[in-house]
């Protein structure tokens, strides 16, 4: 076994560094290029959000956030995520159960179709619901006759949100459950456990971190979606405006401080998402290591 020293080591005479490492000047150049690139496209814009939001002081900042239209936008954003995320969660679990625990024809096609919404432009994700529920759409005349509003109302926003966040939970769970196989569930079945019992007591503890990971990403996209929601919302202030749409309206009115204040709320949500994501990754790694140490003999 060769022991590799960390590559920041200043001791250039250590053999592994000399044969498979780069000279110090190359290392620092590459680090500088990487950080410079990330700084230009990532860190500077992120800092700019908070700087612009707080430019006129903390009072103006909070005033922008507690204004009635902003509060309505926060409420609608939370509501649509609260509907879209659980629905996609149930779908993700059902699809992953069928795909990972059973063999059937066309499975690969199903997996590809589940990923489809990720390769559709957000604008088109909104457009398709306009074609279905708009005044000249398939169901438009019927909806109008029965006085049901979907487009330019909350149901349309929820539908578009569901579409763009559709694959998140399923694509996390499918590979995870496929890798875990069916042996534990089969053992529980042989011992007489019902389907629900197997799921709650055997499958769910095994997939909980993957599930949480999918939900966190799904939620971030649900709250932050702009393009799809923008097409179906109708931009009615205080009624059909989500937070990202509120940012756009304020920005286009040259109300920059309020726009960036609202944007900073969404940026904080993104940072929180990344922190939670890191935490979940760390927890599941801990679990894996615990599992390995519990095994009597390594394979």
């Amino acid at each position, binding site marked *: 076994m060769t022991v590799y020293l960390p590559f920041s080591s200043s001791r250039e005479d250590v053999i592994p560094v000399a044969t498979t490492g780069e000279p110090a000047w190359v290392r620092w150049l590459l680090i500088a290029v990487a950080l410079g690139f990330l700084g230009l496209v990532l860190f500077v814009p992120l800092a700019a959000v908070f700087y612009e939001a707080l430019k006129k002081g903390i009072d103006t900042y909070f005033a922008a956030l507690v204004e009635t239209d902003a509060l309505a936008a926060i409420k609608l954003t939370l509501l649509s995520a609260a509907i879209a995320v659980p629905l996609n969660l149930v779908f993700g679990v059902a699809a992953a159960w069928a795909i990972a625990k059973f063999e059937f024809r066309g499975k690969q096609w199903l997996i590809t179709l589940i990923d489809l919404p990720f390769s559709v432009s957000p604008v088109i994700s909104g457009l398709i619901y306009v074609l279905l529920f708009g005044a000249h759409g398939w169901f438009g005349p019927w909806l109008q006759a029965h006085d049901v509003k979907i487009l330019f109302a909350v149901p349309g926003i929820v539908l578009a949100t569901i579409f763009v966040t559709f694959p998140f939970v399923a694509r996390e769970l499918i590979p995870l459950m496929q890798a875990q196989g069916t042996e534990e569930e089969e053992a529980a079945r042989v011992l007489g456990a019902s389907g629900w019992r197997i799921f709650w007591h055997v499958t769910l503890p095994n997939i909980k971190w993957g599930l949480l990971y999918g939900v966190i990403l799904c939620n971030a996209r649900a709250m932050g979606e702009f393009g799809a929601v923008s*097409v179906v919302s109708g931009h009615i202030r205080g009624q059909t405006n989500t937070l990202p749409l509120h940012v756009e309206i304020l920005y286009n009115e040259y109300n920059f401080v309020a726009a960036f204040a609202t944007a900073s709320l969404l940026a904080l949500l993104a940072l929180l998402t990344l922190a939670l994501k890191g935490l979940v990754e760390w927890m599941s790694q801990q679990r894996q290591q615990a599992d390995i140490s519990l095994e009597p003999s390594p394979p």
Partner: protein
Amino acid sequence: MTTAPKRHSVLPGFNLTLGYALLYLSLIVLIPLSAAFIKAASLGWDAFWAVISSPRVLASYRLSFGAALLAAGINAFFGLIVAWVLVRYTFPGKRLIDALVDLPFALPTAVAGIALTAVYAGNGWLGRYLEPLGVKVAFTPLGVLVALTFIGMPFVVRTVQPVLEDLEREVEEAAASLGADRWQTFRRVILPIIAPALLTGFSLAFARAVGEYGSVIFIAGNVPMVSEITPLLIITKLEQYDYVGATAIAVTMLIASFILLLLINVLQGWSRHRRGN
């Protein structure tokens, strides 16, 4: 251990879960998407062609696909360096920077759009230094490129990173012991191993950038024929109640995306195959 196909599995719930998954998939994704194709078909071939090949639409394809391709190329180059630095070297703040690479996935596109505009506008933090040099970024096609680079950034890093982590040092040591210098080892040994992952990340970044809307419209300036992306053109047609025109352009984009999706699936299969060996 059994690897035989479980056609007669003892586990329950197959009909229920597959049935529900198919129903939900059809209601949310398949039926709405097919509505776009049926609507476009109602147009007839000649009229369809007239819409999707009009000069303004062609100019938007050139910008959307061209800028997306260029942004994916920039991301492939710098993404590889970022992945390399994160896997091979240690430096202060590395873990934090590793976590922040995913920011474009988590940050709402509208927020990215106004932030990039604030930074790269003529009076912005970076724009004020670029403008005297004659480089105008915001409200030009260059702004579109910056936005698309931002949203495609994590794809290459995140596809290349795990492959670099799995790379066995013995291979590099063998190359070194046979007299290869570091650059030769990289070009002849490492690059061929990570090439499928690099290409996958490139295509994922490209596919995402082609359809991007939120982060672009704020910084682009949206001048027809110059800095107008295809998704914006769809919105413009919708706002003029030209549903058929909007759908025709959308269907063209959908077909392009589906071809890309197939290509990415093939690439990922290749990448997995390479790593398996």
